[in-house]
């Protein structure tokens, strides 16, 4: 079966390109979604599909690989994927706090602050999964100019029930394993965007990528870059490069309105069409009840979304959204998550604190939330102090299925996974006492007084739906949510003091040691205080 796939791959790549089935396809898609508070959520999605290809079998990692010949697929990513035999890869670099209340869900659920990398890899290679994970991190860090090498063992966990594979996993007889790491203090800036754009077939010179203006993009209220590689059994290896941002048109407009256009948002327009894209689409939608008009007008889909085919459009292409009087414009369903989760670290002391997480259910249906917390060893949990209270009264029934892996100092993080049952119209508050570690002199980073960023927690809400006819309870799984990241302030020693401390402590110890030694080894002698008598020798 494997050899058939490979021969099919070779044959398909050698086949001249003028046959009817191209082997690589590139789709680009731009979507704008006006949010209720006037902001615009944009999403640039660039997807390349390698038809008929299969990820590399890890057992072939010691041997020579087949040649890689790509037309649209980025060669740098292809090299990394095959070098470490990765089946699925998700990397996101985000900045800003995602506000689920005002902005709802995003198309890509990974909105946690900082860098998040998780891969599914199969076992069976000559090198271990952790070695390949380390190689992947370093290679991606080099490719995207970000310090992903910092996602080392101190940040890596394996929460396999929360981060399920989003594509298919090939069957090679060995199990696939997850490696997940998150670094909340990673900053995103232009030096990450530039290599990202270099991976696109049309770069930033044609197609929708011309709108990517770093000045405006990194000025957004929230922005994130994402690389997602999945494998689908029917299509092949797909890589999606996604840029999402929440822009505020009010700040960028001259007349101080929330009307926007490409020029006002990005200071650019789409100059030319990307000649190699199989499909180049644009979609715009507005919240229900608001009246907008779009120029040029697009075709309507049944969801109320305006669609444009940029292959057919007039170039240079600029879209303008203006307020209008008729309510007939495109609407989208405002999909808000049923839960609001907030996390905080309370307590003034640098020796201990309290972690409190509140789940607010403002809807009429009860929600079962799967809560995953991965805490680096800097903050240690006192799990016996975990209490849950609903609307102020303590109730032990609200928590179930607690799984806990303690943190190892200077090693792997703690993993707590539990299920919280949040009834309708209730706020459930979880509190737990935590101990803050005292680090060695060499463990502290250069900016030690800033504190340490703690990675966001992941919540997967399940809507509890009661089937009225059969009285069966079914759980509908919703996309995962991320809480905010926290900043923990750890006690720092005085960094100018190493030799001083050595001298003080050693002098005191030496003094006491010497005094005890002298007392134990010297002899008593009776001495006369008078001047004229002699000393009496023992």
């Amino acid at each position, binding site marked *: 079966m494997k050899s058939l796939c490979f021969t099919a791959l070779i044959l398909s790549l050698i086949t001249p390109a003028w046959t009817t089935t191209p082997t690589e396809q590139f789709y680009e898609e731009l979507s704008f979604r006006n949010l209720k508070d006037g902001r615009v959520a944009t999403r640039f999605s660039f997807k390349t599909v390698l038809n008929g290809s299969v990820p590399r079998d890890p057992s072939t990692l010691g041997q020579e690989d087949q040649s890689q010949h790509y037309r649209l697929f980025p060669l740098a990513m292809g090299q990394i994927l095959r070098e470490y035999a990765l089946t699925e890869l998700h990397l996101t670099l985000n900045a800003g706090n995602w506000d689920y209340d005002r902005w709802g869900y995003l198309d890509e659920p990974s909105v946690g602050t900082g860098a998040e990398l998780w891969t599914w890899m199969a076992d069976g290679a000559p090198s271990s999964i952790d070695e390949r994970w380390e190689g992947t991190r370093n290679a991606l860090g080099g490719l995207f100019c970000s310090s992903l090498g910092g996602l080392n063992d101190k940040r890596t966990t394996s929460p396999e029930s929360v981060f399920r594979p989003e594509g298919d996993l090939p069957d090679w007889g060995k199990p696939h394993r997850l490696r997940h790491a998150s670094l909340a203090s990673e900053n995103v800036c232009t030096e990450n965007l530039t290599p990202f754009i270099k991976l696109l077939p049309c770069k930033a010179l044609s197609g929708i990528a011309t709108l990517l203006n770093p000045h405006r993009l990194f000025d957004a209220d929230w922005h994130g870059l994402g690389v997602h590689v999945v494998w689908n059994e029917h299509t092949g290896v797909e890589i999606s490069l996604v840029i999402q941002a929440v822009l505020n048109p009010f700040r960028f407009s001259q007349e101080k309105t929330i009307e926007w256009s490409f020029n006002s948002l990005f200071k650019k327009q789409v100059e030319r069409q990307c000649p190699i894209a199989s499909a180049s689409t644009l979609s715009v939608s507005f919240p229900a009840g608001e009246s907008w008009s779009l120029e040029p007008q697009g075709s309507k889909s049944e969801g109320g979304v305006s669609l444009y085919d940029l292959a057919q459009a007039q170039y240079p292409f600029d879209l303008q959204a203006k307020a209008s009087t008729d309510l007939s414009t495109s609407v989208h369903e405002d999909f808000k998550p049923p839960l609001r989760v907030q996390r905080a670290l309370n307590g003034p002391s640098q020796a*201990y604190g309290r972690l409190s997480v509140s789940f607010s259910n403002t809807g009429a249906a009860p929600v079962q939330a799967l809560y995953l917390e991965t805490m680096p060893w800097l903050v240690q949990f006192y799990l016996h102090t975990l209490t849950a209270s609903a609307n102020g009264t303590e109730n032990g029934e609200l928590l179930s299925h607690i799984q806990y892996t*303690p943190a190892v100092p200077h090693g792997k993080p703690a993993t707590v996974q539990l299920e919280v049952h949040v009834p309708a119209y209730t706020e459930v508050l979880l509190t737990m006492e935590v101990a803050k570690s005292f680090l060695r002199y060499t463990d502290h980073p250069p900016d030690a007084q800033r504190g340490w960023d703690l990675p966001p927690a992941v919540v997967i809400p399940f809507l509890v739906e009661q089937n009225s006819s059969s009285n069966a309870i079914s759980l509908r799984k919703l996309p995962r949510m991320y809480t905010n990241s926290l900043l923990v302030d750890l006690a720092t020693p*005085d960094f100018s003091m190493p030799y001083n401390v050595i001298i003080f402590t050693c002098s005191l110890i030496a003094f006491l040691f010497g005094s*005890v030694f002298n007392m134990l080894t010297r002899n008593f002698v009776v001495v006369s205080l008078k001047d004229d008598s002699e000393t009496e020798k023992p």
Partner: protein
Amino acid sequence: MSATTRTTTTTKGLGVSLGATLSTITALRICLAFTKDVSTYLQYEQLLSSPLTSYTRLQEGLFLFNHDVDPYSGGLFYHSPLYLSIFSTIIPNSRFIASLLWTFADALGAWALVQIWRARQGVSSPTSRDSLVAVSYLLNPYTLLPSLALSTSSLENTLTLLAIMLASQRLHSPSLLALALLITLNPSSILLLAPVLLLLAHPTGPKSNLASPSTGSVLTTPLLKKTVLPLFAEFFAYIAVLVGASALTSGGWSWVGQNVFAGVLLPDLTPNTGLWWYFFTEMFDHFRPFFLMVFTMHLLIYIAPICVKFQHDPLFATLLLQGILGTFKAYPTLADPGLFIAMVSVFPEIYSHLRHPIVTTLLHIHAALLLPLFNHLWLAHGAGNANFFYASTLVFACANGAGVLDCLWAGLRVGIEKLSTGEKASEDVEEEWTVVQE
């Protein structure tokens, strides 16, 4: 040279019987523990409980143990597995029971101290000084506060006092069993093994021989072979059984790395009243193993010389080694120097020969006021620096060191007693002479 000298005549008593003292103070303590729930305020105090003795960490370990997670797989739990077995099987795990337990353990420790005092005097009936001795342990803030904070160092103090009491009463096996239990729970108490063995093997036992050190060397080979070695073998057997029980409880040997080697490898750098934490916070990684070795060796280097020098009075050697332990231990709390201060009350014969008691007391008051203040300023207020607290620990170490040195000098000086008549010579004759060490 007189035989044992009775020194009680010049000491003062409280005029109250021991039983009355113990019961009143115990009752007061229980009321205090329950009216204000003091332990919840004090449980996080770094002066009162170290990572090896903290009640919160014990609770966490018990919780994980009861839920089938290995408590030693993380970095939070350093207690001995025997605590896990005791609190999950014998003693129910509630704060109410724990406060009662700690209070009674304190009372037991005070009673044991009084028994040691009586054995030293050679009497079995109450003396006038009994309640003073009991009060010096019960109302000593250094031992009272850790006990209120439910720090297991109070339980270890009680065990220490029990072991010494049983050794003073020449009960070999119970004493060795108590000592083995103590060392399994708190491995740094190994310093007290040698003086307790000597105490058991000594011909006159705990009786005060400071004023009249016997002639000849007691540590002769026949004594060693005949008495000390069998005792050591019995002790070793007890240790082996307890270590086996610990391994059985915790289901493996991972507890050895956390419990036994915590005092040697210093995995947790939480501030405490000792000298180790800041030294190893600031130490370079290259020298870290070397200095850990040096500090451990430094603790062990005192055992043999002190036991050899005070072989005529092993109880005094116990006092000195407890003082050393309180000053130089890896994870001390206030309870360790507190035990030393309480035990000084058993040796009133040295009081007149102390050279600088006022300096020691003032240093202790100085440190006792500054330690909690600077700890609070540094960690809770953010107004201070780690150096403030470090400086106050240096003062505390000076205070403890001054106490040990003074007791050591006084213990030796008592031997240069007046001549046999027992009368005090006239004042002018005394002023002509002074005793120094060359």
